[in-house]
């Protein structure tokens, strides 16, 4: 479904992603594991087109701070130069890190904004699915999203991505800053998303422990480079992974 070939991304002269190649098959849940500043967000933003958008804006102002090389293909189509909002129309949807929601809009409005591409029935169905997956959100539906807790905002952010109607859902650190209990809720919801929508999912995380058990395939990156790859089970048993990403 998604093929990334020898991707390189520079900020100024700093290399954030280095000759990265990876593949995501339809229906899979794929993990991208890496510690802080390994290049996960840069990778996700490149896939979603946000980096391209940033690059274009910088160029307009006369700067050439960002360089992107390599190829991103979605369902056999080269999307390297496609604007971010058009990629969304193909079903490639990113949920950015640090629970991106519209703080001044209510929970319901957030979901409606996310549903701007879909028909009324589609949006209704996806909104219902979100409230099914995250029953906590139901009682806050008329509350401004800025007043929700971090975990609730993360749930809403995932819900918004679902309302858009993803065929490939990119989740950037969905567990960041959540309590272990909340992490379990989100992990459970992600599993449900796969079951109920059939979406293919890519999760970027630094916490390997809750993520590895649910992924079909994982890529470990360090300093923007691929250091290891394997099935979830293979990575789970790897002693290096254990010492580096499972903590003590």
């Amino acid at each position: 479904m998604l093929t990334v070939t020898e991707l390189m991304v520079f900020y100024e002269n700093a290399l954030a992603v280095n000759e990265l190649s990876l593949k995501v098959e339809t229906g899979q849940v794929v993990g991208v594991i890496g510690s802080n500043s390994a290049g996960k967000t840069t990778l996700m933003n490149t896939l979603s087109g946000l980096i391209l958008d940033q690059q274009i804006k910088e160029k307009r102002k006369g700067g050439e701070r960002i360089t992107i090389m390599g190829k991103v293909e979605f369902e056999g189509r080269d999307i390297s130069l496609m604007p971010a909002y058009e990629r969304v129309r193909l079903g490639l949807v990113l949920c950015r890190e640090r629970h991106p929601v519209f703080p001044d809009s209510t929970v319901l409005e957030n979901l409606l904004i996310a549903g701007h591409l879909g028909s009324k029935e589609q949006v209704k169905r996806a909104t219902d699915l979100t409230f099914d997956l995250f029953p906590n959100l139901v009682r806050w539906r008329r509350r401004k999203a800025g007043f929700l807790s971090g975990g609730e905002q993360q749930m809403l952010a995932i819900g918004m991505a679902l309302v858009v109607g993803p065929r490939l859902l990119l989740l950037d650190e969905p567990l960041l800053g959540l309590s272990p209990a909340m992490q379990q809720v989100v992990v459970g919801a992600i599993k449900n998303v796969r079951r109920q929508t059939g979406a293919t999912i890519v999760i970027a995380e630094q916490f390997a422990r809750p993520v590895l058990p649910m992924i079909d395939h994982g890529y470990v990156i360090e300093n923007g480079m691929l250091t290891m790859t394997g099935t979830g089970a293979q990575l789970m048993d790897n002693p290096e992974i254990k010492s580096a990403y499972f903590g003590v």
Partner: protein
Amino acid sequence: MLTGYLIYGLINSVVLVLVALGFNLTFGISGVANFAFGALYVTAGFLAWIGLNTLSLPYWVSAPLAVLITAVLAGLLYRVVVLRVRGLVVSEVIATFGVGLALLELFRFLGFIGFEYTLPDAGDFGVSVLGVVIDSQRLLIVAMGAALTAFLWLFTRYTTTGRAFRAIAQDEHTALTLGINTERTATIAVAFGAGYAAVAALVILPLGTIAVNEGYNVLVNALAVCIVGGLGSTLGVIVASFLIGMAQTLTAAYLGTHWMMIVSLVAILLILLVRPSGLFGSHKQLEERI
């Protein structure tokens, strides 16, 4: 006497609401500081005048056409000038103010000065409220103020484009990841704001003449209302319009009309000292943006 001042103060407040709504829509919602706003307001007035007098078009053609052309001009201004400097706020302000300045002075250069530049008003009837006679044009202003405010409120809540306005105002990157074409949305917001300015011009300008200097006054007033109310807040626009509008009218009544513009400037200074985010500004937008 006082009743009269109060009623005329209220009407003046509605004038400010009309003038500031469009500016607020563009600045607060698309996040673009359109400092050519006053120039666009005056342009709409002259366009309508040219349509009526030079081209001899009927009012119902000339007025909508003026609104449409003003909106398209603003959209072009955004595409051609602002997009390049988007995000560099000082550059946005300078670029749009520069274009506005050029536009206004062009009108002056072309000789658009004098008492013949007036727009037709709503006719000769009046209504008496608490013993004060309000003419039809001022009644129209109040009705338009209410209608445009209600329309904006409904539009930003119940339409896809309106929701997209609110989305790009809050977080452009997130809007983009939801599939919103943010630059197109921002262009529409700028054009929409200019359309509001044009409608305001068509109902307010018949009270006097279409003068180049109005462009500067309108910008200062719109800026004052938005800064005092808090950028992006429609409720803020309304409350601030009434505070400043009443203050202006009472100042004019007791100190003289030439003190009126001072009120806006003092209001800007006061609010910047006391509460820089404005009365209803939820974020520290102002500090960030100016």
